[in-house]
């Protein structure tokens, strides 16, 4: 067996293990010889001639027996250590059932199979161990970067292509017409001054006018002006750039642009436009609503210019929840 192992060692195994085998064999031999010494000593026994000598011989016999026994003990220790060395390098800790007989196959190219299998199994064990550690650590430190659970669950899926910008004009007109019926105090005029993309001219009660530039059904630009401000330039062009000359409507324009981004949804574009227009409708009482928080009309000489995007309640800029 020892010869077999020595001869059948594949070249990938390091020479240290070979040395260990040699040491172990030497240790076995040493144990055997020392055990043989013990038996020989016992077989010779104690020779008795004279009484005085008998005691001496007795002492000698006991001394030689104890010496040989202690040498057996020492050699046995050496054998144990060499066996331990062998077991650590030989992969005795892993038992792969009857596949372990593979290493007894004398064919050289098949003998390495068992060692490779053990290596692979160890590697897999380590991967399992590390992944379980990793999972527990990650569960403890849960990094939530988005409230949108739908998005996180479907992260691996491919996102559908947004088509909100590419809606037929007829569909836009029907949709805006439907909205107009819902929003009673809001007048919506749909014009197309630059090609197929619609521009909504909105008049809200007797409070404000707004221009909403659409691309398909995506809101691209919002401008809010006073009820008595002109939406057209001197040469009868729709003026979508000049801001209102009143600071209150400049603020409302800023809030409307923020709300437009808030309501934006790449897939539910019609819902985004609908939500935005309902939100804008809450400005019909811009000058008459008191702030929900401080219950006053004026703060820094401005009325409550901000509207909550969920409840449509009026707040001053500095009173926002």
């Amino acid at each position: 067996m020892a010869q077999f192992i020595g001869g059948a060692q594949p070249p990938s195994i390091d020479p240290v293990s070979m040395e260990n085998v040699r040491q172990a064999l030497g240790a076995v031999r040493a144990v055997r010889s020392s055990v043989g010494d013990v038996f020989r000593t016992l077989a010779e026994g104690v020779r008795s001639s004279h009484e005085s000598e008998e005691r001496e011989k007795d002492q000698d016999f006991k001394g030689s027996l104890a010496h040989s026994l202690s040498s057996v003990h020492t050699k046995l220790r050496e054998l144990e250590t060499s066996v331990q060395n062998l077991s650590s390098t030989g992969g005795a800790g892993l038992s792969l059932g009857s596949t372990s007989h593979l290493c007894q196959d004398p064919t050289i190219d098949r003998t390495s199979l068992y060692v490779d299998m053990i290596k692979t199994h160890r590697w897999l064990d380590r991967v399992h161990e590390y992944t379980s550690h990793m999972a527990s650590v990650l569960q403890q430190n849960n990094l939530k970067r988005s409230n949108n659970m739908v998005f996180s669950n479907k992260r691996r899926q491919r996102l559908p292509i947004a088509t909100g910008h590419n809606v037929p004009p007829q569909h836009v007109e029907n949709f805006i017409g439907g909205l107009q019926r819902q929003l009673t105090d809001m007048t919506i005029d749909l014009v197309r001054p630059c090609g197929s993309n619609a521009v909504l001219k909105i008049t809200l009660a007797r409070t404000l006018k707004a221009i909403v530039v659409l691309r398909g059904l995506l809101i691209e630009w919002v401008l809010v002006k006073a009820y008595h401000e002109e939406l057209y330039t001197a040469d009868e062009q729709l003026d979508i750039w000049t801001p209102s000359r009143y600071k209150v409507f400049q603020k409302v324009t800023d809030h409307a642009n923020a709300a437009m981004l808030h309501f934006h949804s790449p897939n539910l574009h019609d819902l985004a436009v609908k939500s935005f227009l309902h939100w804008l409708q809450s400005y019909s009482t811009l000058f008459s609503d008191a702030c929900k928080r401080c219950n006053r009309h004026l703060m820094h000489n401005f009325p409550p210019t901000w509207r909550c995007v969920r409840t449509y309640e009026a707040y001053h800029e500095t009173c926002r929840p």
Partner: protein
Amino acid sequence: MGVVIVHMVPCSGPEALQSTADNLCRMIERIGGQRDGVFCVDCETYFNTSMGRTQHVLHDSEHPASVFSLLESGLCLVADANFDSLMNKLTPQLFTTKMGTKVECKGPRYQVEDFVLKVGTVTIGTSARGLLVECEYQPCPVTASCWELMRELMESLLGVPLNQPGPYLALRMREIYTPVDTIQQYMEHFNVLRKSNPVQAVSAPASGQSGGQTNQNAQTPTSKG
């Protein structure tokens, strides 16, 4: 053109007018008011000698190209600045005016964000009679919408609770505000101030001449009633 409220500030006497006006100006500057020139509203009163009617002709520095002509009935004519020269031509024959009856309201003008605040001392002839504060909120065209807003500002400035709007404005709370409404409010206050001192109050002269028809013709085409 936004909504304008003209409010008379109560004063203990003619001596206190200037100090009250100064205090108000300081208050306005404290809340962030930027002084932006002066303003003037004046009112000249003419008497139609043939029909015995009174006609007020007002100018407002906010509308320098317009002349407002008010009858006692409340009918208002908005005309170009040429209307003054027409009245001057008609004055000796058809209309008479009395010296020292011209009412003027003058003072500083302040801009506070979207508000325009004016503090004007009213003089009739040469004597100071009262103090008017004009508050305009430019972004809003309907009085009912922004009345509470303006009342809050005026109460914080004047320190006294503000009552309901004047009788003229109360009837037009839900209508789109026009410059004529400002003139009508000034006229209300000027009438009160004139009557406050019977010695200075205007009395109609008794010189009657024909020519009222011409006046009616002049008003009809542009009358805004």
